[in-house]
C-alpha cells in the first residue's frame, strides 16, 4: 500500500477514521431529536473560530472548537428561553458566524478567503501533526459521551418530558449533546469541511435506518457506514485528485440510495414474517384516536 508511505496520508487516514466514527455517533442523537440541521448551524459558527485562529495565530482547530462550543451552548439556551422566536436568533447566529469568519480571516496578516476554503471543504494534505493530536483528543471525548451516556442520551432524545419526570438531568444532557456536536464539527472540519460536516452526521444515520429496527443496530451500522465512506473518500481523493469532503459526502449519499433500494424487498419480507407470527393481529385496528377526527367535531 504505497498510499501509507506518506506521512500526510497516514495522518489524513487516521483523521478520516475518527471522523467516520464520531460524526454519525453524535448525529444519531440529533436525528433522533429531529435536529438534523444542528450540525450545519454549528459548522457556520465554527467559521468564526477558524478566522479568529488565523487572526490570533492560534491553532484553528482549537479555536474553532472553542467558538463552536460557545455557539452550541448559545443555541441550546435559545431553545430553552425563546421557543417562539428561536429560529430568528439561530439564523442570526449562523450568518453572523459565517460573516465573522470571512471578516477575521481577511483581517489576519497575509490572510485571504482562500485560506478558508480548505476548512470549508476539507483538505487532507494540510492535516498537521498538531491537528492529529487535537483530533484524537476531541474524538476520544465524543466517543466517551456518545457511548458512555447512550442510555441517558437515548431517553432524552426520545422523549424529553418523560426523561425530566424520571429525574434525568435533562438540561445538562442537552447541553452535553450540543457541546459534543460542536466538538465533532471541529474534528470533522479538516477532513470533510465545515459546510459538509452535517452530511456526515445525518446521512449515515438515515442510510442505516433503512435496514434497522433498533437504536443499537442503527448506531453500529451508521458508524460502519461512516468509517467506510471516510476511508473510501480519502483513498479516492488521493488517487483521483478530487476534493475529499465532496467525495466522502457523495459516497455517503450513494450508500443511502443503495441501502434504500436494498431495504424495500427486505421490508416486504419482514412484513410477511410479522403477519405470519401474529395471525389475525393488528390490521383490524385503527391508530387514529377516535376523538380527534374532524367529523366528530361537527357531531358534538
Amino acid at each position, binding site marked *: 500500500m504505497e498510499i501509507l508511505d506518506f506521512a500526510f496520508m497516514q495522518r489524513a487516514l487516521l483523521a478520516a477514521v475518527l471522523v467516520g466514527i464520531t460524526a454519525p455517533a453524535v448525529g*444519531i442523537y440529533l*436525528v*433522533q*431529536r*429531529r435536529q*438534523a440541521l444542528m450540525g450545519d448551524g454549528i459548522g457556520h459558527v465554527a467559521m468564526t473560530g477558524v478566522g479568529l485562529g488565523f487572526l490570533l495565530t492560534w491553532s484553528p482547530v482549537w479555536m474553532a472548537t472553542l467558538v463552536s462550543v460557545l455557539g452550541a451552548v448559545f443555541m441550546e439556551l435559545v431553545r430553552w428561553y425563546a421557543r417562539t422566536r428561536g429560529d430568528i436568533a439561530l439564523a442570526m447566529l449562523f450568518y453572523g458566524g459565517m460573516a465573522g469568519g470571512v471578516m477575521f480571516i481577511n483581517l489576519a496578516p497575509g490572510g485571504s478567503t482562500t485560506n478558508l476554503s480548505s476548512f470549508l471543504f476539507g483538505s487532507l494534505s494540510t492535516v498537521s501533526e498538531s491537528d492529529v493530536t487535537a483530533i484524537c483528543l476531541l474524538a476520544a471525548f465524543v466517543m466517551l459521551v456518545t457511548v458512555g*451516556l*447512550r*442510555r*441517558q442520551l*437515548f*431517553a432524552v*432524545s*426520545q*422523549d424529553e*418530558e*418523560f*426523561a*425530566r*419526570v*424520571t*429525574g*434525568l438531568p435533562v438540561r445538562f444532557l442537552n447541553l452535553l449533546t450540543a457541546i459534543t456536536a460542536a466538538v465533532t464539527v471541529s474534528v470533522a472540519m479538516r477532513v470533510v469541511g465545515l459546510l459538509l460536516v452535517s452530511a456526515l452526521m445525518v446521512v449515515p*444515520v438515515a442510510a442505516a*435506518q433503512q435496514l*434497522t*429496527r*433498533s*437504536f*443499537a443496530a*442503527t448506531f453500529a451500522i451508521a458508524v460502519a457506514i461512516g468509517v467506510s465512506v471516510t476511508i473510501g473518500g480519502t483513498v479516492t481523493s488521493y488517487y483521483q485528485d478530487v476534493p475529499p469532503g465532496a467525495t466522502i459526502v457523495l459516497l455517503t449519499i450513494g450508500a443511502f440510495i443503495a441501502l434504500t433500494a436494498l431495504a424495500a424487498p427486505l421490508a416486504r419480507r419482514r412484513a410477511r414474517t*410479522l403477519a405470519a*407470527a*401474529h395471525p389475525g393481529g*393488528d390490521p383490524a*385496528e*385503527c*391508530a*387514529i*384516536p*377516535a*376523538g*380527534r377526527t374532524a367529523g*366528530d367535531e361537527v*357531531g*358534538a
Partner: protein
Amino acid sequence: MTTEPVISLSGVRAELGSRPVLRGIDLTVRRGEVVALLGANGSGKSTAVRSVIGQVPVSAGGIELFGTPQRRFRDWARVGYVPQRTTAAGGVPATVTEVVSSGRLARTRFGVFRKADREAVRHALDLVGMTDRAKDSVDALSGGQHQRVLIARALAAAPELLIMDEPMAGVDLASQEVLAETLRHQVSEGATVLLVLHELGPLEPLIDRAVVLRDGCVAHDGPPPKAVGQHALPGHDHVHPHAPAGAGPMRTGLLS
C-alpha cells in the same frame, strides 16, 4: 388503606401564556387510591397532572409529592408517568425493549443496567402483554400497542404512584382491556393512581374517586359519576348531576 397523601395540591394556579388554566385547584390523592380527573377539553385536566410532575410552572399554591414539596422532591423513581402521546417513536428506529428500558434509568446508577434491571424491563413488558413484540420497532405498532409500551416504560421503574394522561385515547378495545387488567394488577399491588380520562369506560370499576374540572376549577370531587343506559355509551354528552342549572352539558364523552 392508610390515609397518607401521595399527591397534595392546594390552591394551585397556573397560566399558559396569559390565559389562566388552573384557577385554584385543591386535590389530594391518598396512598392506594385510584383517582380519575375528568372534564371537557380545555378544562385544565392535563395541565393539572403536568403541574404535579413539574412540567407546568405554577404561579400560586403548593404541590407536595409523598409529603415533600415538589420543588425539593428528587425521588422520581417512585413516580411513573405516562404522557398523552399517540406515538412512542422518535427520529431513529427503536425497539420496544429500548423504549421501555429508558423508564428503568431512574433505578440505575449512571445508567448501567444490571441483571435485575433487564429483568424489570421484561416484567414490565409482560404486564402489558407485549413480550412477543419486545424486539420489534415501535414504528410498527398500532396506537393501542404504543400506549401499552408507554405504560410498560412507566412500570419499568416499579413506581408507587402512576400518573397517566388519557391512557385510553386512541386505544383499540383489545388494548383497553389489557390496560385495564394491567392497572387492576398495579392497584392490587398497592399502587396509587392518578389518571386523566375523557370517559370512565372499562376502567370504571377500578376508580375510587372522580374529580371533575371545569374552567380550571374543581367542579366535583367524590364517587365517580354513574353512567347508566344511553349515558354509558362512549361519546355521550354527559350532564353531570352536580352542575348548576343552565351550566350546559358537561362533556365527558370521547367524541365530544
